[in-house]
């Protein structure tokens, strides 16, 4: 039915997103750097000057360790959820595989992620502990986060075709997530009985492991890593299946 090149289509959709977003902006790519820096500055001010209970000079970097994976997760999930609606005209007229749209939309956010990772790692090198051998784990951890968001976006984009309120559910969840992911507090402050639950939240698990590696110079906990692998890949598998089922009705419902 459609026998084009998946990678060629994906690349083109991602490039389109990128060009459209930045072509008419004067600061362009710098927004990717500016956003987390502003958030980091505000949080650092509030939690070191107003609530002066934080520990150490590493506080800004610790905040950044959480902001980078969290903001990627939020933006990718939200745009992924809307991706089918945004491309409704194409879906009704061109027999291109529908999975392409949520996938392209998540992947096109990866460029910001890479820039923000560079910012994070740069700050660790200059102001933090510097390089250690456990940095080798970093690509694996980011990769798992991307896999998880891909699965989530497949499910939610498909649901959003049938029930349009889904996008607001996603927006509300993203707001809640800011408080439930340890952004401005550390894991040690979480009461023991909740800690196990936190590890099931993939974004919190990513933050925990990043802090282990970048701030404490320790390898990620095997237990947390295994859990993240399981959760991410089952999410992707489930997303693929659910999407395939729901895709049959896209034409009528878009």
């Amino acid at each position, binding site marked *: 039915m459609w026998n*084009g*090149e998946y990678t060629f289509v994906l690349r083109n*959709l991602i490039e389109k997103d990128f*060009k*459209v977003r930045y072509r008419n902006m004067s600061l362009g790519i710098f927004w990717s750097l500016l956003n987390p820096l502003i958030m980091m500055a505000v949080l650092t001010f509030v939690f070191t000057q107003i609530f002066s209970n934080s520990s150490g000079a590493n506080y800004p970097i610790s905040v950044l360790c959480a902001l980078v994976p969290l903001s990627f997760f939020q933006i990718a999930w939200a745009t992924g959820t809307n991706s089918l609606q945004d491309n409704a005209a194409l879906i009704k*007229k061109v027999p*291109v595989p529908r999975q392409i749209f949520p996938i392209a939309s998540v992947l096109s956010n990866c460029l910001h992620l890479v820039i923000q990772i560079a910012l994070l790692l740069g700050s660790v090198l200059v102001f933090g502990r510097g390089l250690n051998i456990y940095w080798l784990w970093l690509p694996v951890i980011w990769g798992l986060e991307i896999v998880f968001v891909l699965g989530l976006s497949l499910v939610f984009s498909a649901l959003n075709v049938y*029930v349009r309120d889904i996008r607001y559910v996603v927006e509300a969840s993203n707001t809640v997530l800011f408080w439930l992911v340890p952004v401005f507090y550390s894991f040690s402050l979480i009461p023991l009985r909740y800690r196990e639950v936190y590890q099931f939240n993939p974004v919190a698990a990513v933050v925990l492991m990043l802090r282990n590696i970048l701030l404490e110079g320790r390898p990620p906990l095997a237990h947390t890593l295994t859990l993240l692998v399981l959760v991410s890949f089952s999410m992707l598998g489930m997303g693929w299946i659910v999407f395939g089922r729901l895709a049959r009705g896209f034409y*009528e419902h878009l």
Partner: protein
Amino acid sequence: MTTVIEFDRVSKSFPRVTGQQLLRTHIVRWFGSGGRQGEFFALKNVSFRLHEGESLAVVGRNGAGKSTLLGLAAGVATPKTGRVTRRGRVGALLELGSGFHPDLTGIENLVLNAALLGLSRKQTMERLDRVIEYSGVGEFINEPLRTYSSGMMMRLAFSIAIQSDPEILIIDEILGVGDAGFQEKCRQTLDSLIRSGKSLLFVSHSAPQVRGMCKRAIWLDHGAIMVDGNASEVLEAYEGRAVLKQSS
């Protein structure tokens, strides 16, 4: 003769959406007590075959189910009951310029569209010059699409679609593209495609176009096939009915 598209007792329905889709509506429907909201059948029990090298026109009033039929043939929609089978590479021109973005330049839009239509990177690069040449938009090709006139945009869209080299061409009422010169060029291109053994399935409201391009036609009314046969006879029946309706 080989069959390239076959519709086997195909029906297609759309959910009838009346009013808001409130949460209550969903809950009621999920628990099944409120009953179904009703369906609208766009196609009812449609069967036909398109053979290799044949060109087939679909005629009928607005809302008769023509676009739904083409959507099913192209594979963007799935039938509710029955089966649609295709053999060969399908090029579906259901709408020109779907996926065009106003902020991208002509050439960027061409490459994106080619990818979506199913061309590989290599094929796209090989054909790009030919497509630009065919479209005749000239140096505008490096300008953003929002600076194009609507005619120029359609020329660009048609050029890439026709150069995607399909074995089965599905076209929905888009041949009124551009000025007289370009329309003539489109017609010649389609003619030569048909002569080279490609199959064509298309919707048109222009009787001369149908007569000029197709030997066979289907008249669709309220989702059902009224007549399937010789193009000029089908047109006569369809137009006769239309005239009768107007006078009564």
